[in-house]
Each structure stands twice: as structure tokens, then as C-alpha cells.
């Protein structure tokens, strides 16, 4: 469905000089720096996939998405979406595309929500019966019936985002690009949107590319994630695999009936120590959890315990910070 090969995008950025003299020099000098925002990205996404697209700010995510949507022309490399070249065949391409920018609205700000849907029907030239069926389905699933007659500017962020999603799907697109659809939302609103997206992907087979900084979105929704940094793909594979390879670290919290044992086994680190509590950190491949628990239970009666995996956020933060070097050491192929 989406094929990207050796995609590159370079920007020419005017060179700026600082200070009052610099401002004068900016007027006369036309120096340019070439910034490579996307530096040879390749991936393929099949029909019906739900892919998380993540990376730190400035990694090249939105530039890549813009090239996929046809808004930007690649400097080099190829993009094909459903067999089309997005830039060349813009109108045909975007007719099958739904896009949500979390930070920007596509609804008519001063008009009731329903009017935006009606206008989109005419923009996308959707026949009345097909439109009504799709609209009613979206209204029901996203529970926006009571919002339809409210002007968009009066909606809360969560309400607006549900309406944005509906608006992006009015024309029943095959592909959906989402850019931070859950940003700034409360837990309940996030959950509603995640549930909706999961159903949309599963039942209608919509191919979804989700850009987000909220890794819970990725964990809950995307079997596959593509991680980019400095304009390159640094990881492309399942969330499970990256957790297994990089999420080696575990955390064990134990409450004892009485004083906690003064010492711990080798390779186990004490993160926090209370009179009757220990919080321990260890690597899964070095210390099997059952053995550690048995060892502790021999020394003091345990009243309660919990075992935590490394949150995916920590893993990804580690990759952003150190690159994939640690991952390579753990036997993770660089581009699998």
C-alpha cells in the first residue's frame, strides 16, 4: 500500500548572522545551508497495517508524512501510495486519504460541526446515501451525536478531536495519517480515541500511520513501529521485539513483614530502601525473577510484591539518547 525507497528531503536554509551587524549582513548575503531533514528512508506498509511512527522532535517525521501525503516533493527517492505518486497525482491520491493534525483543525471554526461534514461531502463529491451511512456510523462510534449542532469553537479539545477524526473519515479513505491525535487529551478521551482507531483498523481494514509522542498509543494500537532519528530509520519492527531486546530491565517492589533483608544478590541493584520495603532493579537475562523472589522470601516473610517491565517510554528515551548501540549489543538487528 505504501512503498518508500531511499527517500530524501533537503531544505535550503538561509544562513543567519547574529546581532545588529549580522542583520545587515543577512540583507546582502544570500548564503544557504543545506539541511537534510530526511536522509534515505525506506519502508513498506501493507494494506490494513497499523504502524506507529515515532522519533524525537526534528527527526524528520512530519517531513516524511508530508511527502507521503503529497504536500512536499522529495529531493530524491520514491514514494508510492496505492500505486500512485502522491505529488504527481495529488487529486486522485488525496481522495483516498484521511489526515488528522492534532494541533490544527480541519473543521469550520465558527460553524456547527454538522456543517463541516456537509461541506466535506461536497468537497469529496460523495453521493448522499453513502455519505449519510458513513456519517451516521462515525457519529455513533465516536458518540458525537449531541455535538453536531454545536459550533466547533465551543467544543472541548477531546470533543473536537473526536469530530476531527470523523471529519477525516467522512469520505471513507483507505489510508489514515494521524499526527498526534491524542495530544493534550485526558485519559478517558485518549481511551475513546484509541478504541475507535483499533476498531476502524480491524473492521474496515483502514491502513493507519500514527505519529505520536505518547508511546501508550503505540503500545495499545500498533503491532509495528518505525522509529526514526536524524532523518534515518533506526528501528522498524514489532513493539514486542524491541521490548524483549532492549527492555531488559525489570523492577521488583517487595513489602516484608518485618525488617527488609540488609543485602541483595549479585547483579541486583537497590533503587529504594524502606524499613520494610525494597525496590530492586535487575536485568532479565542475568537474574530470573522467580529465583530472586525465592531468595528474598527465605530471608524475610513477603506480604506483597509487584514486578514491572521497563516502560516502553524508557526504552525509546534510551534510543533517542544513545542511539541503538545498546540494542545492537543485545543482539537486535539494526534494521529488522
Amino acid at each position, binding site marked *: 500500500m505504501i512503498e518508500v525507497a531511499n527517500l530524501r528531503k533537503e531544505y535550503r536554509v538561509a544562513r543567519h548572522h547574529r546581532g545588529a551587524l549580522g542583520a545587515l549582513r543577512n540583507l546582502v548575503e544570500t548564503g544557504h545551508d543545506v539541511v537534510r531533514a530526511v536522509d534515505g528512508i525506506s519502508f513498506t506498509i501493507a494494506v490494513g497495517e497499523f504502524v506507529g511512527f515515532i522519533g524525537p522532535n526534528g527527526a524528520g517525521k512530519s517531513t516524511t508524512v*508530508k511527502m507521503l501525503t503529497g*504536500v*512536499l516533493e522529495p529531493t530524491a527517492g520514491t514514494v508510492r501510495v496505492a500505486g500512485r505518486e502522491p505529488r504527481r497525482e*495529488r487529486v486522485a491520491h488525496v*481522495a483516498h486519504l484521511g489526515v488528522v493534525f492534532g494541533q*490544527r483543525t480541519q473543521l*469550520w471554526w465558527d*460553524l456547527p460541526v454538522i*456543517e463541516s461534514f456537509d461541506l466535506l461531502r461536497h468537497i469529496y463529491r460523495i453521493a448522499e446515501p453513502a455519505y449519510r451511512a458513513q456519517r451516521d456510523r462515525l457519529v455513533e462510534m465516536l458518540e458525537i451525536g449531541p455535538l453536531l449542532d454545536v*459550533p466547533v469553537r465551543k467544543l472541548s479539545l477531546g470533543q473536537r478531536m473526536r469530530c476531527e477524526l470523523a471529519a477525516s473519515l467522512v469520505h471513507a479513505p483507505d489510508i489514515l495519517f494521524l499526527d498526534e491525535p491524542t495530544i493534550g487529551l485526558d485519559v478517558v478521551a485518549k481511551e475513546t480515541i484509541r478504541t475507535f482507531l483499533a476498531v476502524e483498523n480491524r473492521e474496515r481494514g483502514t491502513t493507519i500511520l500514527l505519529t505520536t509522542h505518547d508511546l501508550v498509543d503505540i503500545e495499545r494500537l500498533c503491532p509495528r513501529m518505525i522509529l526514526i532519528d536524524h532523518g534515518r530509520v533506526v528501528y522498524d519492527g514489532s513493539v514486542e521485539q524491541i521490548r524483549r531486546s532492549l527492555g531488559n530491565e525489570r523492577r521488583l517492589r517487595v513489602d516484608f513483614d518485618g525488617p527488609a533483608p540488609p543485602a541483595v544478590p549479585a547483579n541486583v541493584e537497590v533503587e529504594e530502601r524502606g524499613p520494610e520495603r525494597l525496590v530492586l532493579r535487575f536485568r532479565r537475562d542475568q537474574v530470573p525473577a522467580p529465583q530472586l523472589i525465592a531468595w528474598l522470601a527465605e530471608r524475610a516473610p513477603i506480604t506483597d510484591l509487584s514486578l514491572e517491565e521497563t516502560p516502553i517510554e524508557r526504552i525509546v528515551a534510551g534510543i533517542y539518547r544513545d542511539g541503538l548501540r545498546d540494542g545492537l549489543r543485545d543482539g537486535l538487528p539494526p534494521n529488522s
Partner: protein
Amino acid sequence: MSALRLYLRLIGASVRAQMQYRASFFIRSSVDFLVVVADFLPIYFLVRKFGALEGWSLAELALLYGMVEVSWATIEGGLRGFEHFGTYLIQGELDRWLLRPRSVILQIAAHWFEIRKLGRIAQGALVLTIAAIVLQLDARSWAWVLTGVCGGMLFFAGVVMLGAAAQFWTLGETSELQNMLTYGGSAALSYPVSIYAQWFRRVLTYGIPLAFVNYFPALAALHRTAVEGWPAIMPWLSPPVCAAVLLVAHAAFTRGLRRYESTGS
């Protein structure tokens, strides 16, 4: 046809959106009404004092004024999106338009209809009609007047589109230049080109061809082409010149759009 329908639908949405702020709408409309009165007043007093202006009677001047007023106000109201284009560009609104399967130019044009300009269009039409009645224009002269009005719409549409196109390179720095051409141009055209100095007349004819908007068609309507010393062909050149301005603007905008798609800024 479907493009025109979509234009009207989007314009309708823009009007309904503005109606949400009714008080502001009425205040702005009455301000515009006063501006129109204030615009024509100096011409009126000028002619009252001197009887005529370079051989142009008050009714003839009113005709000239009404023609340019109707065409400029129609474009200013109906294609407002082009005038605000710099802002839309910076806010990323253009991306949204590119993501919809319709012409970008159509979506910009239809983005905003300035309803308060309706008052101005009506005022211009009123002045024009009264002048035409006083001058007892025949059908042929009326046809020239309408040709001038339509040509003016093409011309001003070209100017606002050209102004929008320039935004791709300058990002909001050229709006003053555009204002000079539109507001300044329509003000200059409220007087017959013949009252201006030779060099300025040349600029208005061959440089920025504003004279083709209302002056030459009005000459034909008033049978004054020869009187003012112009070749008889000049009024006939009016429609093609105005259309050419729009075509050039369209080409420039298309180029700007291509540039945007390759730079993203």
C-alpha cells in the same frame, strides 16, 4: 460547473460564519458605507467648483468611478482569501487545501467572502446606474460599460492572485505593494487617465495596465476615444489585456505552489 457550485457552498459557509458575530458585521458594514461616501465626495466637490474636469462632466466621472468600484469591490469581497493568503501560508492552512481533492485556487478563492463589501458593490452599482441614466446611454454604450466592469474583475482578480503568488517568496512582506495596486489603483482610476501627467498616463497604459480596466471602455461608451486622442482600437484591447493579467497571475501562482511543494516553507 461543479467548481462554481462548490465555490458558492464554501462562500455560503463563510457568510454564515461571519453572521455569528452580528454586531461586528453591522458596525463594519456601516463603516464601509461611510468610506464609499467619503470616496466620491472629493470628486463631487471638485467638479462643482470647476464645472467639469478636463472636459468630463460629473455624470461621466461618476460612470468611471462606478465601473471601477463595482469591479474592485466584487473581487475584494468575493476573492478575499487571496488577500489573506500570506497569513494562511504561515499558519499552514495551505497544507489543508493541498490535502483535499479540489483545486487549491478554488479553495483559496472560496475561503472568505467579505459580506460587508456587498454594501460597496451596491453603492458602486447605484452610482453607475444613475450616471448611465443621466447620460442616456444606449445599448451599445451599456455593453461597453459591462465589458469594462467584467474586464476590471479579471484584472483585479489577477492582481490579488499575483499578490498571493508573491507570498510564496516573501511570506507576507509584499502586501503593501499589492495594496498600492488595488486600493491605489482603484483610487487613481476614479479620475480619467487624461488628467494625469504624460509619464503617469504611460505607466497606467503600458506599465500597470490599469487604464484598460475602466478608462478605455468608458471612452468607447461615451464616444470620447478620438476626443481624448487615442486610437480606436484601445477599448477593444481592454478585455484581452485584463484576461492576460489574470493568466500571468495564474501562471505565477502555479509556480509559487510548485516552489512551496519543493521547499515546504
